[in-house]
């Protein structure tokens, strides 16, 4: 399997007053297709910034991000929008569903951005929420909302599924269920899943573990025998 994404010498700099602040500095990494990748690090380490760059939601100050050989760091707004629409699915810590749309409608919303989406009902069935299709987010539990969010992300059949602390707002059992779902997406559907978390125990289920600290990648480990979601502790 070849590299789906390759980051070369990435820097992300913010300027506050006269001071420059580096969220990421000299980051190089490769993510292979079809892998479960966990990015680990404490708060403020630059994990979310890294995830934003991978998903084309932000652009680096310098360096290149090659996605299937194309440098998305050079993309303009329109190209980035198309990239997000075509290739990336996102699962947020707080689900970020549109509160005025039902579960089904939230998933069906993806048809507005991409033509060949999966059937929304099929996606909801995959996440086990077929019966809740016509409920509004406010009528669902956190775990259910997160599963709708996953259904929404996979409806686009993205090559890359990005998850920002997907279990951060959930209790242990629900969190485990969500993780299992994400693993299924990776293993059964062959999608590349990149998950950001501060919970070190997530390393056990990953194919690749990238540790980030103070804006730098401190290590990249390959896990030969990734475990099942059941082993995770919170």
């Amino acid at each position: 399997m070849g590299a789906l994404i390759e980051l070369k010498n990435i820097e992300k700099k913010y300027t506050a007053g006269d001071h420059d602040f580096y969220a990421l500095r000299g980051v190089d990494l490769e993510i292979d297709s079809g892998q479960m990748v966990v990015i680990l690090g404490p708060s403020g380490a630059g994990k979310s910034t890294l995830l934003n760059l991978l998903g084309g939601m932000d652009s680096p100050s310098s360096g290149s991000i090659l996605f299937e050989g194309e440098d998305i760091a050079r993309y303009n707004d329109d190209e980035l929008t198309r990239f997000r629409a075509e290739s990336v699915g996102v699962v947020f810590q707080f689900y970020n569903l549109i509160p005025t749309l039902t579960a089904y409608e939230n998933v069906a919303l993806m048809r507005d951005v991409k033509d060949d989406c999966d059937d929304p009902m099929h996606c909801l069935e995959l996440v086990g929420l077929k019966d809740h299709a016509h409920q509004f987010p406010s009528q669902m539990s956190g775990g259910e909302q997160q599963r709708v969010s996953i259904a929404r992300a996979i409806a686009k059949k993205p090559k890359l599924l990005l998850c920002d602390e997907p279990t951060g707002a959930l209790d242990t059992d629900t969190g485990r269920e969500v993780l299992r779902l994400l693993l299924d997406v990776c293993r059964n559907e062959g999608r590349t899943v990149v998950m950001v978390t501060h919970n070190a125990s997530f390393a056990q289920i990953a194919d690749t573990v990238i540790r980030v600290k103070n804006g730098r990648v401190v290590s990249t480990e390959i896990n030969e025998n990734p475990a099942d979601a059941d082993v995770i502790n919170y």
Partner: protein
Amino acid sequence: MLLLKLFRDLSQNRIQFLSIFLMSFLGIYVFVGMDSEVTGLEACEESYYEETNLADLWATGREFSKEDVNAVKHINSVADAQRRIMTEGKAELDSDEYGDEPTMQMIFLEDEGISNLKISEGIPYRPGSSGVWIDEAFASRRRLRIGDQVTFKLENTKFTEKISGFFYHPEYVYYVENLAAMMPAYGRYGVAVFDISEYPLEDIEFNSMVLDAHGIDNKGVMTDEEKAAGRALASKIKNVLDDEEMVVFDKTELMSYSTFRSEMEQHHSMSFAFPIVFVLISLLGIVTTMSRLLARQRVQIGTMKALGFSTGRIILHYVSYGFFLSLTGSIAGALVGYHTLPAYIISMFTETYILPVMKTGFSSLAFLMIVMEVAVSSFIAWYASRRECALIPAEALRPASPKNVKATALEKSALWDKLSFSARWNLRDIMRNKVRSLMGTAGVIGCAMLMFSAFGCLDSLNFITGWMYGEINTAKTKITMEEGTPYGTTMDWAKKYSGQMIENEAITLKAGDIVKTGTLTVLDTGNFMHFEDADRHSISLDKKGVAMSYKMAEMLNVKEGDFFTWNLQGDKKKYKMRVGKIYRNPSSQGLTMYRKTYEDLDFRFQPTEILTNVTVPDSAKDRDEIADVQNTDEMMDSMDAMMEMMYTMAAILITAAIVLAVVVLYNLGVLSLIEKRREMATLKVLGLKTNTIRAILQEQNVWLTIFGVGSGYIAGFGILGVMFGDMPEAMDYCIVVEPKSYLLTFLGTLVLSMLVNQVLSREVKNIDMVEALKGIE
């Protein structure tokens, strides 16, 4: 799906969005209502003038012979010319609610083709035919029927005619009984048309000629080219007939035409004034509501962007809110406005104007207004959403950084510490939420403005009646003499009733290039006519010299001491004089002088009326030399139709004011309560009582209301200026607002705004401290 989101968002924020809808609705409702009334009536007017071929020029002031007419017909730009006799007589009808022996304007025709009669019933007029044709407005009020025999009286000669038909006459869309009348009272007087063969007197003297000119048509308003063509033709006619003193005028000098025109223009200006207020408020509503909605949906915007929606799609989504609301509001307003308002105005119009058909019409302007309203609303929605929507997804997904709040100069000043807690809290709240405060004030201004103009309108009309018949003319009764009554006879009547004799004559005035027609009033000794200067301070006129009415001086662009010339209509001799004093008169514009001055100019004093305070018995009316006896109450009655219209107008204005205030203030109140929820919960936790918090909210509301009412007075004067600005030339109305109207406006607005606030602030009691202070996400 985004469309679905749009509708769900709309229904979740229905109060705010409903107010935007309502304001768009009201703005377009009033505009389309009035515009389609004006458009429709103008179209009816135009087709009426076209169909009847309203004359382009009128010539009077001499006798017109057959040769004269032929000579004029030979002028290149003359399409046709006809002469006729215009005179005044009486009809002997049974006494009814309109009185007996009505004055009839009599027209004896020689030909047809210019200013034709539009027959409503009976047979058409043809040259040589017998009988009489009577105007529809008079005939219907006096219940006349085709075939009735009516006896007329012209200069003591009686003659009886059978009614052949009823008609509408294009020169009589509007007409009043005499120069001093303020409002028409159709039924009291009428127009009768005969063929010249029926003329009862020995000497046939054609005193009027009507012309159809090339280069002047009856389409739309008279253009400058048409006016120039008219002037050129007038001087040609004078040349051809070798008569410099004759009077030739175009339709802008015709009372019927010009009064209807002014009325249309007045409605036209008003059709713009009101919608602008409502549309502005709807735009402010869009700004506040949209920016709040966007702030609340910031994360949703970030999510949509992260999911692959383009900035353009998202902006389009938010622009649709403004677009849909203004579109549906405007269309609903246009439909309702078109179907209700014009019919109502037209129903009141039939008392004043006589047109064969009055119907509504939809103009391209109304369509343009809707397009503009929708375009501006969409633009404002775009303006309010462009920043939030342009954020990159990573940034939109983060909570907004807190506002950069700096202490203002006031907060740094020593005065600040002396203010009470509630004053400081409210001042800060106003300064930090400028748009919301501005919009609240705008709502109050709009409400006060509408109320103020409603009250001001009634005050001004009441004032004018009192001014006219209480200050300027203090006589109880006016005796109008028959034309040609010998001086001695009039003098006897004046002596008998201790009256003041007055002569009114139609004159033409000229200063520089400006020529106007007006009335000359000549006063004999007596004390029934009083004068006031431009600022309505009492003045007395000089015994010598001539005084000019304020509006006439304005129209001629002259001041006291300036020279001008005047002549009696039909009289060759012109007089060059200086303007003496300038006085105001609401219903008659022209000149006033004393008898002595008049006689010094070699005129013979021929009084046309007598003013007196002594009660004149009704039997006086039966005397041949007396045309009419009217007391002030009767004259005031003729104002009733106008007053009735104004009351309705005032009721509409006040209703609009209430709707405006309630909608805007309620909407803003809801918004501000949502925003202040956490602050108020904090105040509650700190131990402030619910009522104390409500009082703080009310205090801010009262401040803004007081400020808004002040500005509302100014805006109200603006509206009154528009309402009273385009009055017919003969009328000089001034805007008067009584102190009680200021007070009523203030109290009305304050009570409304306090009530709305009181209802809203009940919510403070229900704020759950724990719930409100929980984390935001």
